[in-house]
């Protein structure tokens, strides 16, 4: 199946790669006007990676916190409803998040987070742009909300299968609750937690409609983010934006080319994650998985 998809995408992208060559990846122009066509994907690759990185930076720690709270700390009567609510978040379609972000959440982010950051920390290049609310930063935050349920529920299950004998081993050495987490639970679960995080990352990279609605949809060199508050564009969102109005075969091929890059990107991340996990498991003879 994957091979079929990869083949179709590769074939569709062939014209653009033969036209632009390596320029397609490193170029920044995006011009679909007939006769002056020029396509470069670099801004969107950056936009994709940056928004996903923000999502991970915010989402992973919060997910870990939720999973630890639910499995290791909270009494049963709190942990059950809490994990139910978090899981419910996973059931919300991404377009709903997009609408909510577009009409409500982006103003909160703009007024409560971006403005203060801009006013006080604009000497840091990241924050040196008048915030508008529809930008890479907002997209990253909303993406993080979207991946938190996935990462936290998988992490929760992983923490749950850490045998109690491991926890008791640490407790019997006079470990505090935190010491037990650090000594017994995390090392045992780390490959699984890593896997969960990469699953979330895969979701964030490929997410289309939500990002399209809030990332700002910049085009061409302007889509290279100079600050976190720049309008950007991700690979997936550009495809969604322009697929219906692709003016020429070359334009269409360029969009498919973006798809090819996206596919490659997710594959590389996935395989990288696998390798990391398997190396960790190998370090533990008799370890799980």
């Amino acid at each position, binding site marked *: 199946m994957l091979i079929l998809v990869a083949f179709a995408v590769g074939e569709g992208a062939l014209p653009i790669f033969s036209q632009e060559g390596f320029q397609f990846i490193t170029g920044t122009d995006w011009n679909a006007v007939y006769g002056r066509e020029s396509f470069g994907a670099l801004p969107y690759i950056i936009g994709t990676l940056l928004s996903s990185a923000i999502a991970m930076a915010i989402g992973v720690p919060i997910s870990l916190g939720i999973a630890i709270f639910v499995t290791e700390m909270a009494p*049963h009567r709190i942990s059950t409803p809490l994990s139910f609510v978090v899981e419910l978040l996973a059931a919300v379609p991404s377009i709903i998040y997009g609408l909510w972000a577009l009409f409500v959440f982006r103003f909160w982010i703009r007024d409560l987070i971006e403005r203060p950051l801009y006013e006080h920390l604009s000497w840091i290049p990241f924050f040196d742009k008048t915030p508008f609310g529809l930008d890479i930063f907002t997209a990253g935050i909303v993406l993080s909300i979207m991946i938190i349920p996935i990462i936290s529920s998988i992490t929760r299950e992983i923490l749950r299968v850490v*045998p109690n*004998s*491991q926890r*008791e*081993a*640490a*407790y*019997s*050495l*006079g*470990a*505090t609750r935190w*010491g037990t987490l650090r*000594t*017994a639970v995390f*090392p*045992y679960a*780390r490959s699984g937690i890593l896997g969960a995080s990469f699953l979330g990352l895969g979701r964030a990279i490929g997410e289309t409609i939500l990002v399209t609605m809030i990332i700002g949809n910049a085009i061409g060199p302007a889509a290279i983010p100079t600050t976190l508050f720049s309008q950007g564009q991700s690979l997936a969102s550009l495809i969604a934006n322009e697929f219906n109005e692709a003016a020429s075969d070359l334009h269409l091929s360029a969009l498919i080319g973006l798809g090819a890059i996206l596919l490659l990107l997710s594959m590389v991340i996935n395989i990288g994650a696998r390798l990391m996990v398997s190396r960790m498991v190998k*370090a*533990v*003879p*008799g*370890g799980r998985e």
Partner: protein
Amino acid sequence: MPAKETIKPVSEATGPMGESSPLKEISVRTVETTKRIDEPQRRSKVSIKGINAWFGSKQALKNINLEIEENAATAFMGPSGCGKTTLIRCLNRMHEMTPGAKANGQVILDGIDIYDKSIDPVVIKRRIGMVFQKPNPFPTMSIFDNVAAGLKLNGVKDKKLIKEIVEESLEGAGLWEEVKNELDKPGMGLSGGQQQRLCIARALAMQPEVLLMDEPTSALDPIASFKIEELVHQLKKHLTIIIVTHNMQQAARVADHAAFMYLGEMIEYGKTLQIFQYPKQELTEKFVSGKFG
């Protein structure tokens, strides 16, 4: 800890034997006679006073009273589900970490009640080590790090000191000769019996005063079990050992004192020899002669 005091809880207990008063009379008299042949009295390290324990609403231990002698091995035995594991887990406050489990009563370690409200259960576990049924080394850690885990958890930073204690502990657990050239190999690469001795070394590294062993050989083959038993003989010279076992032969081999439990009650407690040769309670007699359990 005169033997009379030891046996008192038994007559007080409202166990299956509690109602038969003639038997009670006999047991008290027997105690008087055994007292005279006792060797010079040794100190009591742990006194268990009126321990009750529950899982949810099910009572697992009913008013257990016991004196554990210092630098000796005491065995808790009894059929499955008799509460012997629960009892040993009450002695370092591990029992209450199971969701829904609770315990009350007193466990006095050198004059301090570990169930006192002012006592931090974390600190107690540093003084009372524990070895579990199944060997449970930390799978991601090397042999060295496994033994050093407790020290690191308690903030010991001095590398030289850690190294010394690790070596001592591995020697104490009879594992040093076997692993001294592969300390950085994963602990999980060892055989089951070695893993269990690694866990013992890990507990010894905390320099505990009491070592609780919860059926430490139940997952091991006879030769590995034998090594652990040998180890108990060595360790009890300097350490108070409490060992749970469902294996009567093992209790007879390693323990100076033995306690027989049934359905959450302490049926009989005394010198191992006495328990096996002259049990005072009918139930004990049935158990040690292999009629049930």
